[in-house]
C-alpha cells in the first residue's frame, strides 16, 4: 500500500470534473454513479465514492430486497411486546418485569468459504456487536449452518474451520451456544451458509439507538485500531460470485480478536450503566463509512469528522481505505462534552483504546477532513437511507411446475424397511450433531436451561445486570429452515420454516413472541431466484401475520451461488418466545416411565 500521491479533496473534485473514477470496480453501476454526481452537484471525491459504493452495495442498502421486505412492516400483526421494530440494529421485545430482549440473525457466508475459521468467527463477532449497540448484554448465541455433502473434500476443509471459528469466538466471549442447525446438501458445496444469531438482554428503559443528536456532542471511536482488513470486502467480497478471482481477494479477509470483543462488551455495559452514551453504533461491514453516515442521518443531521485522528494499525492506510476497512471489534459512540472524561476513564479501566474523532453538527452535512483538507462533504441520508431501490424482474422458474408435479407415490417402495431406516438414521442430516455441539460452551453464565438436544434453546434471564432481582423468567429461541421445501414451493417453504421454529419454541413451554430471519438466496439479478425470494418473503410475512408474531429484524444474503448455479433458496427463521417460569419448561424425550404418550395434530 503506497501512500496517496495526492489527496482527492472536495475542491480538487470540483476542479477536475472529468477525472475517471473506478466506480465499476467498486461494484457501482453507471446510473448509480451518475446519481451520486447529481446529489453532490459535482463528481465525488475518492473518499465519497468509497462511502457511496459501500453504503449502496447490496449488502448494506438492501436495494434488491427492500421492496419485498416492506411486507414485514405492512403485514405486521399488532404486538404490544414490540419496543423497537425493523430498521434499527436489532429489534427489541418486551418480556415483562421491566426486562426486554433483543435478537437478530446474520449471515457470514462468503467470508466463511474463503477463510472458514476467521469468516465464521467474525460472523459471531459482528452479530454480537449489533446486539451490544442496542444497549443490551449479549447472553447467548446460535448458529445455523449449511454445507456441501459431508464426504466432499471441500466440506472437510470448510466444516471443521467454521465450527472451530464459531466455537473459538463465542466460547471466548463467554456466550453459551444454545442451539442451531447443521444441514448438508449438494447445492451448498461451493457456497456454505453460516448464519449466526445473538440474543441480548436489557432493561426496558435502557434501549440505545444508533443516532447522533445534539450539535456539539462528541463522536468517539473505540475498540481495536483500524487496519487494512477486508478492504473492499463490503461491496466486492460480500456481493460477488465466487470464481478463480476470489483467490486474488484473499488477503482482504478480516480476522477476529475475541479477547478484545469480550472486554469491549464489559466496557460498553459499564458505559451504558454510567449513562454516558447518547447514541451508539457498531462498526460492521462498511466500517467508519456506515457508522458515521447512519449515526449522522438519524441524528440532528450533521457530523464533522477528522479522519486523520482514527488510530491505525498500519500508518500507511489512506483515507479511502480507512473508510472501507472492516477491522473488527470497533464501536462508535456519541457522547456529550461533559461526559467525555468519564467515558474515557471507563475505557481506560478496561484498557480499551478510545479516541474522539469528531463532533455532531446541525449542518445537514457529513464532513470529513484529512490533515486539514476537506475530503468528504455529503448529505449523510443520501448514503445511509436513500440508496438505489430496485424492483427487479422476477419469473417463476420453468421447472417449477415439473418439480411440483412429482409425487411421492411414484417413488419406488424399499423392500427392506429396516435397512432403509438405518441408512436414514446414519445419514449426515439426521445423525447426531454432537461432534459440532460439543465444541461449543453451553454452560457459561449459568442460565442455560435447555440447549442441545432440545428443540429450542431456553435461557433464564437472571443476573444479567449487577444488582437485579433474581428471576425465573426465561426466553426460548429456535432457528429453522428447509431449502428443499423452499425450492419446491418458496411461499410454503418459508412458512414451514416459521412454523417449525414456532412449534419448537412452543414445545419447550414458551409463548412465541417475535421473529428474526436470514434470507439466503442466489443472485437477485436472476429473475428465477428473484421469484423464489419474492415468494418466500410473501409467505413468511403472511404466516407471521396469521400467527401474530412480528418480524423484528433480519438479514438478506444474495449471490449465494457457485458459477451460475444458485443454492437452494434458504430462508432461516428464528422465533423467540417467553416463559414466565423456567422451572415449568418441557424437556425433550420421555422423562418418566409410565407416562401417557399423545399425538397432537393430524
Amino acid at each position: 500500500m503506497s501512500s496517496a500521491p495526492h489527496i482527492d479533496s472536495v475542491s480538487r473534485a470540483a476542479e477536475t470534473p472529468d477525472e475517471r473514477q473506478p466506480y465499476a470496480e467498486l461494484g457501482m453501476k453507471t446510473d448509480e454513479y451518475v446519481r451520486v454526481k447529481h446529489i453532490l452537484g459535482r463528481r465525488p471525491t475518492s473518499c465519497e465514492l468509497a462511502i457511496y459504493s459501500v453504503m449502496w452495495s447490496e449488502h448494506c442498502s438492501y436495494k434488491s430486497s427492500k421492496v419485498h421486505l416492506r411486507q414485514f412492516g405492512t403485514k405486521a400483526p399488532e404486538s404490544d411486546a414490540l419496543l423497537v421494530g425493523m430498521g434499527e440494529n436489532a429489534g427489541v421485545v418486551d418480556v415483562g418485569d421491566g426486562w426486554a430482549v433483543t435478537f437478530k440473525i446474520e449471515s457470514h457466508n462468503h467470508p466463511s468459504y474463503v477463510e472458514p475459521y476467521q469468516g465464521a468467527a467474525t460472523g459471531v463477532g459482528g452479530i454480537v456487536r449489533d446486539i451490544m449497540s442496542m444497549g443490551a448484554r449479549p447472553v447467548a448465541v446460535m448458529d445455523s449452518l449449511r454445507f456441501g455433502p459431508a464426504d466432499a473434500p471441500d466440506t472437510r476443509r470448510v466444516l471443521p474451520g467454521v465450527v472451530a471459528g464459531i466455537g473459538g469466538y463465542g466460547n471466548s466471549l463467554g456466550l453459551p451456544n444454545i442451539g442451531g442447525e447443521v444441514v448438508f446438501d449438494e447445492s451448498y458445496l461451493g457456497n456454505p451458509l453460516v448464519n449466526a444469531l445473538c440474543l441480548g438482554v436489557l432493561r426496558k428503559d435502557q434501549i440505545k439507538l444508533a443516532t447522533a443528536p445534539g450539535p456539539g456532542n462528541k463522536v468517539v471511536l473505540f475498540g481495536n485500531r483500524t487496519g487494512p482488513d477486508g478492504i473492499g470486502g463490503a461491496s466486492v467480497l460480500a456481493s460477488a460470485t465466487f470464481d478463480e478471482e476470489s483467490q486474488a481477494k484473499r488477503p482482504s479477509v478480516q480476522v477476529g480478536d475475541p479477547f478484545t470483543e469480550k472486554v469491549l462488551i464489559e466496557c460498553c455495559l459499564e458505559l451504558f450503566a454510567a449513562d454516558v452514551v447518547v447514541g451508539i453504533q457498531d462498526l460492521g461491514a462498511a466500517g467508519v463509512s456506515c457508522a458515521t453516515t447512519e449515526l449522522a442521518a438519524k441524528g440532528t443531521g450533521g457530523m464533522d469528522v477528522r479522519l486523520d485522528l482514527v488510530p491505525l494499525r498500519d500508518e500507511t492506510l489512506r483515507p479511502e481505505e480507512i473508510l472501507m476497512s472492516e477491522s473488527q471489534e470497533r464501536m462508535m459512540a456519541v457522547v456529550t462534552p461533559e461526559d467525555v472524561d468519564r467515558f474515557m476513564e471507563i475505557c481506560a479501566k478496561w484498557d480499551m483504546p478510545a479516541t474522539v474523532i469528531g463532533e455532531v453538527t446541525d449542518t445537514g452535512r457529513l464532513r470529513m477532513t484529512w490533515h486539514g483538507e476537506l475530503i468528504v462533504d455529503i448529505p449523510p441520508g443520501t448514503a445511509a437511507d436513500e440508496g438505489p431501490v430496485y424492483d427487479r424482474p422476477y419469473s417463476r422458474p420453468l421447472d417449477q411446475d415439473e418439480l411440483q408435479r412429482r409425487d411421492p407415490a411414484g417413488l419406488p417402495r424399499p423392500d427392506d424397511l429396516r435397512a432403509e431406516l438405518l441408512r436414514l438414521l446414519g445419514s449426515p442430516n439426521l445423525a447426531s450433531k454432537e461432534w459440532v455441539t460439543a465444541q461449543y460452551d453451553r454452560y457459561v453464565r449459568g442460565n442455560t436451561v435447555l440447549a442441545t438436544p432440545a428443540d429450542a434453546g431456553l435461557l433464564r434471564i437472571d443476573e444479567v445486570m449487577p444488582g437485579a432481582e433474581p428471576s425465573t423468567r426465561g426466553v426460548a429461541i429456535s432457528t429453522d429452515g428447509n431449502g428443499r421445501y423452499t425450492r419446491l414451493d418458496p411461499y410454503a417453504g418459508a412458512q414451514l420454516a416459521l412454523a417449525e421454529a414456532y412449534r419448537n419454541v412452543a414445545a419447550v413451554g414458551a409463548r412465541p413472541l417475535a421473529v428474526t430471519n436470514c434470507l439466503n438466496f442466489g443472485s437477485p439479478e436472476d429473475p428465477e431466484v428473484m421469484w423464489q425470494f419474492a415468494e418466500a418473503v410473501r409467505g413468511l410475512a403472511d404466516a407471521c401475520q396469521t400467527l401474530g408474531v412480528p418480524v423484528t429484524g433480519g438479514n438478506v444474503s444474495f449471490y449465494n451461488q457457485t458459477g451460475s448455479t444458485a443454492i437452494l433458496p434458504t430462508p432461516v427463521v428464528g422465533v423467540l418466545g417467553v416463559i414466565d417460569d423456567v422451572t415449568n419448561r418441557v424437556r425433550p424425550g420421555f422423562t418418566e416411565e409410565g407416562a401417557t404418550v399423545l399425538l397432537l395434530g393430524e
Partner: protein
Amino acid sequence: MARVIVDVMLKPEILDAQGQAIARALPRLGFTGVASVRQGKRFEVEIDGPADDAALAEVRKMAETLLANTVIEDFTLRVE
C-alpha cells in the same frame, strides 16, 4: 535424516491479536524497550532422506497446503 524448519507468521497486514496481547502485557511486567512482538508458529519437519531440492520442494508444498494458511499467513523454509 535432515531437519527442515518452517516458520509461519501472520501476514504483516493481518491483525496479530496474540502478539498485541503480549506487547500490551510487557510494560506491566517491567519489560520496557520492546517496540513490538509478533507471534507465529514454528514447525520442525524431520525428513527421511537428505534435504535436497526435491525434498525441499515437497516440504514447501506441505507448508503451502497444510502448515500455513496462506490466506492470512506467510512462511519461510530453512534447513537446519
